[in-house]
Every structure is written in C-alpha cells, then in structure tokens.
C-alpha cells in the first residue's frame, strides 16, 4: 500500500504548490483586483507584515481549540462507554447528538453568549459542540462493528464489561477513533474561529472579521492561511500519533 514512503510528503506539497502557482497566475493574468482575490504573494506579504499581531491572536485561538479538543475527547470517551454499555441510553441519546449537529451554531450564538459570557468559555464550548460529534460517532461505530465472534470469545473468557472494553472494543475502535479525531481536528480551529466571531477581543476570528470589514482581503486570507496551517499541523500530528498507536496495522500495510 505504501510504496512511496520516502516521497510521501512530496506529493501533497507539490499539489499545494501547483494550486498556489495557478492561483498567482490567474490573479496576475486576469488582473483580479485585490478586493476580490488577493494573490498568494500579497497574502504572504500581509502575513509577514502582520506577523506579530497574528501571533498574538493565534495564541488565543489555539488555546480555545486545544482545551475544547481535549474536552471533546474525554467527553466522547465517557459517552461512548456509557452508550456502549447501556443500549437504552444509546438509543435515547444518539438522536439528540445528531440533532445537536443539525442546528446551525450561529443561530443559537446569542444563547451561548448569554449563558457563558464573552470569555474563552463559549469558544471552547463551540469547539466541543463541533468536535465532540465525529469523535463519539467514530468510537460508537467502531465498537459496533466488532465481529460478533470476538465478543463471543471474550464471553467464553468471562471478561468483565470493562475488560471487554479495554482489551477488545477500545483497540478495535481505535482505527475508527483516529479517523474521527482527524475529522474533528479538521474543524477544530475553524470552530474556535466561529466562536470568536460571536464576540470577543482576541483571536484569529476577531482579526479576520476586522480585516474583512476594513476590506483588507489580503489580511483575511492571511488569517485563513494561518487557520489552514494550524489545522494541517494538528491533523499531521494526529496522523503520526495514530500510526504509532496502530503500528500493527501500519506494519501489515507496509508488507
């Protein structure tokens, strides 16, 4: 499966580079004005110019993202275990979880502010609302998809529920879990940014909104770039962690 190990990172970089070059060319050749779509070079120079400011704002965004993400993981585990143990709770709770995802966050934003104020808490909560779902779903689906035969094996070995969880369900669900984690990580920074749009005084979202309303599109894109880079780095870190934890699978694939 992984024949290109050494060039693994080359292809995506080439893909991104190609996209950037195309973008630059289109903007220059078709003379797209900066208030519609700034060129990559202009974005880069805005990034350099505003570096300190962006760093200042990013720190807050990262903080909310990570705290929310951590909470999401813990919560997802707790809930997944409960849902897996009690079929009734699962059946009652699952639709509520789904509903929680179909509600547009921005529609209930004032409620969040009213309940949790303007501090970092509502941002963290939005991160949790967004990230928690894919993680818990991946865990629950992962545990559901275990071959009945293995469950029987553990039954004959008289394993307790906790043991079945720890020795069978958890490792089995880990593959799914890391998929869910990567999806959650994809949306993690973005959701903190959305949280910042709801109100606040610091964060990439605040920076971005101000730049947008001042028609500084190069700065808007610089902040998008920062969001993308942060997200990609986090996803990549999870990928590496996942490969370590699931080494038996990776070894098998590389065979």
């Amino acid at each position, binding site marked *: 499966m992984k024949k290109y190990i050494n060039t693994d990172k080359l292809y995506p970089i080439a893909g991104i580079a190609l996209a950037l070059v195309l973008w630059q060319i289109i903007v220059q050749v078709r003379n797209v004005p900066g*208030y*519609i779509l700034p060129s990559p070079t202009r974005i880069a120079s805005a990034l350099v110019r*505003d570096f300190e*400011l962006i760093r200042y704002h990013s720190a807050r965004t990262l903080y909310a993202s990570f705290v929310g993400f951590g909470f999401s993981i813990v919560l997802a585990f707790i809930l997944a275990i409960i849902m897996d143990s009690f079929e009734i709770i699962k059946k009652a709770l699952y639709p509520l979880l789904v509903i929680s995802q179909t509600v547009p966050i*921005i529609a209930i*934003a*004032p409620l969040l*502010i*009213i309940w949790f*104020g*303007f501090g970092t808490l509502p941002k963290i909560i939005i991160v949790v609302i967004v990230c928690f779902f894919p993680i818990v779903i991946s865990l629950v689906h992962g545990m559901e998809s275990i071959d009945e035969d293995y469950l029987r094996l553990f039954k004959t070995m008289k394993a307790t529920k906790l043991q079945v969880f720890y020795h069978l369900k958890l490792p089995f669900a880990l593959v799914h879990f890391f998929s869910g984690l990567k999806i959650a990580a994809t949306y993690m920074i973005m959701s903190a940014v959305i949280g910042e*749009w*709801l*109100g*606040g*005084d610091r964060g990439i979202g*605040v*920076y971005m*909104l*101000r*730049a*947008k*309303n*001042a*028609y*500084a599109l190069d*700065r808007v894109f610089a902040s998008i770039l920062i969001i993308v880079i942060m997200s990609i780095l986090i996803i990549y870190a999870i990928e590496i962690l996942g490969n370590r934890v699931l080494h038996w699978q990776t070894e098998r694939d590389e065979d």
Partner: protein
Amino acid sequence: GCGGETEEKTTVILDWTPNTNHTGLYVALENGYFEDEGLDVEIIQPMEGSSTTLVATGQGDFGVTYQEDVTYALTSEDPLPVTAIATIIQNNTSGFASRKTANIETVMDFEGKVYGGWGSPSEEAILNAIMTNAGAEYETLTNTNIGTDDFFAATEKEIDLVWIFEGWTGIEARLRGIELNYMPIKDLDDALNYYTPILVANNDTIKNNPEKVEAFLRAVEKGYLYSVENPEEAAAILLKYAPELEEELVVESQKFLADQYMMGADQWGVMKAEVWKDYADFLMDNGLLEKELDVDNAFTNEFLPK
C-alpha cells in the same frame, strides 16, 4: 457616582467590528475619561446584530445599535428591557450606492435594477416607499439579500445597488478610485433620517444605577468631542485598539465623520422624539411592527451631560 477607589466594571457591546462610528468610545478609554468617571470599561465586538439582545440580557451595560433595531426590540412580543440613551451621529449617514457604471442617478433609475439587501425586515418597505414617492415602479426592482457580503464583491457582478455607510464604504470606494453614485437616505424621505448608530442601556442599569449611565455618557461625550476636534489623533487611537483595520481608511473616514457627529445639533448625542415617532409610524404603516412603539420609553436624553 464619580471617583471611588474601586472602579466599576462596565461592558460596552459594539454593533460590528470596531470602526470610526466607535472612535469616541476608544478615545474615552485611551485618554482615561472612563477612568476619571470611576468606570472600568471593556469594549466587546460581538456577532453582528446581537448587541441589543446582549444588553437586554445583562451581558453588557451599554451597547451600540441603531434606531430600527431598538424599534423592533421594543415592539416584539416580549419587549427587550433596553432604552436608547444617545445617538452617536445626528444624521443618518447611510444611503444607496451604486457604481458609476451602473448609471443610477435618481430613484427613477432603480427600476429594473437588482438591489442587494442586508436582511432587515424593513428594506422592502423603505424601497417601496421611496420608489413610489419618486413615481417609479417598485415591482421592477429585484431585491436580493447579500447578507454580510461587502459592496465591492456584490457589485462586481449582478448586484447594482447596495445600502452602505458613506463614512466607511463610501470612503473605501474613494480610496480605491471606484466612482460611486450615492444617494443619502436622509434626502429621500424625512421619515428615514433615523438615528444610526445609537447607544442603548439596560433598563436595570438605568433604574438602579443612573449615576453610572450619566458617568458613562460624560466620558463618551468627551471622547466624541475629542474626535471632532482631533480626527487624526482619534484615528490613531482607534487603530491602536484595532490594528487590523486599514490605516488609510480609518483616517479618511475619521475626517469625514468629524463633521457628521454633531451636524445640526448643539449638543452631542441628543435625540428628537419626532425622529423616533416618524420612523416607527413608517414601519407601522407598512405593517412591519406588531404594535405601536411607546416613543417616550424608547429613548431618553436625561443622562446626557447638561
């Protein structure tokens, strides 16, 4: 009261990202006017359109909003406990803008054009009224909501006409060398010269802590007066608190607004009952309000510095 060893926590909620409409607030903060009044002020940038609700629910003591919003808030089924306490600008500095290339010079030219709205319930009524007044046929205008999208992107393609703030988007157009046709709203119909933006306070604060409201407005007035006198310095102060903004836009906008804050009034912030009544009547006549606005309870000038 004023003074005191411990400063009173005060939260001000903006209506949008920081801009030149807000300069006086930042000047008051920077120059210590709030501190002098014993107020420890925090200025918050919320999601667009949520400031009135947030003030009503006690998330902020004061908020920036506009007259129409307060009119709706006070006539809704569960009226929000807020009262307008000052207008930041005397005249409505918003209006209809189009690119010169769209050839919209009078309201008559609105016919057959596409209007890009921002989601207010009253836009259709307002356009209908001004077009009908001018003898144009409103039905020929297409009304499309462009949400939070900006003028320049919207008018790039199919949108002809957008409602803008002259002191912000109008200035930006000038800086970019994009020529506009601009019709101030206040020139189109007297009823439409409503206050925007304005300051509101929570009714609890007004009732239980009127000194705080007075102290707040004293400091804010000083801030806006300073901005009128020293537009460039005021712009620098705004930029200090919102360095994400474009300096040139802020400075030019500040110069424009310096003349606007108090135009036609001898005191900063003062509001007239007719302005509130006329616009409420306009909305009522067009079936946009659930019930009559009680103008006396909608605003008050009593906390403005004498």
